[in-house]
């Protein structure tokens, strides 16, 4: 599995969602997207919104401090 990375820790709404969506739309079956995001709104809503669109959230782990790492696949 190839891992693609996306750092949205410096983004704000709605670009957190927009950038995640754009990266996910480019994701192929054998790839995993690793998203770095902040606690609060992004951590609460990004995993929920990608799941509702049919993607799989494989894991959510604390990366460092208030930054979390979310792994998503198709």
């Amino acid at each position, binding site marked *: 599995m190839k891992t693609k990375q996306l750092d949205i820790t*410096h*983004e*704000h*709404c*709605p*670009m957190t*969602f*927009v950038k*995640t*969506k*754009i990266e996910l739309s480019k994701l192929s079956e054998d790839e995993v997207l690793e998203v770095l995001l902040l606690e609060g709104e992004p951590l609460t*809503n990004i995993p929920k*919104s990608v799941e*509702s*669109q049919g993607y799989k959230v494989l894991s959510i782990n604390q990366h460092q401090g208030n930054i979390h790492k979310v792994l998503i696949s198709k």
Partner: protein
Amino acid sequence: METREKIKKLSIIGFSGDFDKLVAVFTLASGAAAVGYEVNLFFTFWGLNVIKKKGGRSFVGKGFLARFFNFLMGGKNNVPLSRLNFGGISPKLMTGMMKSKNVATLEELIEASKAVGVNFYACEMSMHILGITKNDFIPDIKEVIGVAKFLELSEDGETLFI
């Protein structure tokens, strides 16, 4: 009876040509499309300014008065702030503040909306008043429509008037 899966849908009537209200339109549109909504933007009256091909002031349209009005209204580069516009300085200051705070600018929000598949529509009637055609708009305008078509598009979803 046929069961229909509920589509998550947001339709926004973009009536205002104000910078701040347009930021709201494109923030909601791009955000909603990014979380899986079908999004329809229907631009009418002042809102048409933001989808003009020419971003600045220019004499587009047919007829003297129409051309004059279109020049005064301009395009997306000179949309005014709804309050404290100060002759057009404030939108530029606001854009600077948005950039320095890493918040998407109006221009970026428009591009984001296009990238996540927001549907753009223009109002036939107000285009007629202003003497402008689909060719005066950015190529992303899917169709020029009226009330009936808008109602059909927005049916079973949320509708906002901004």
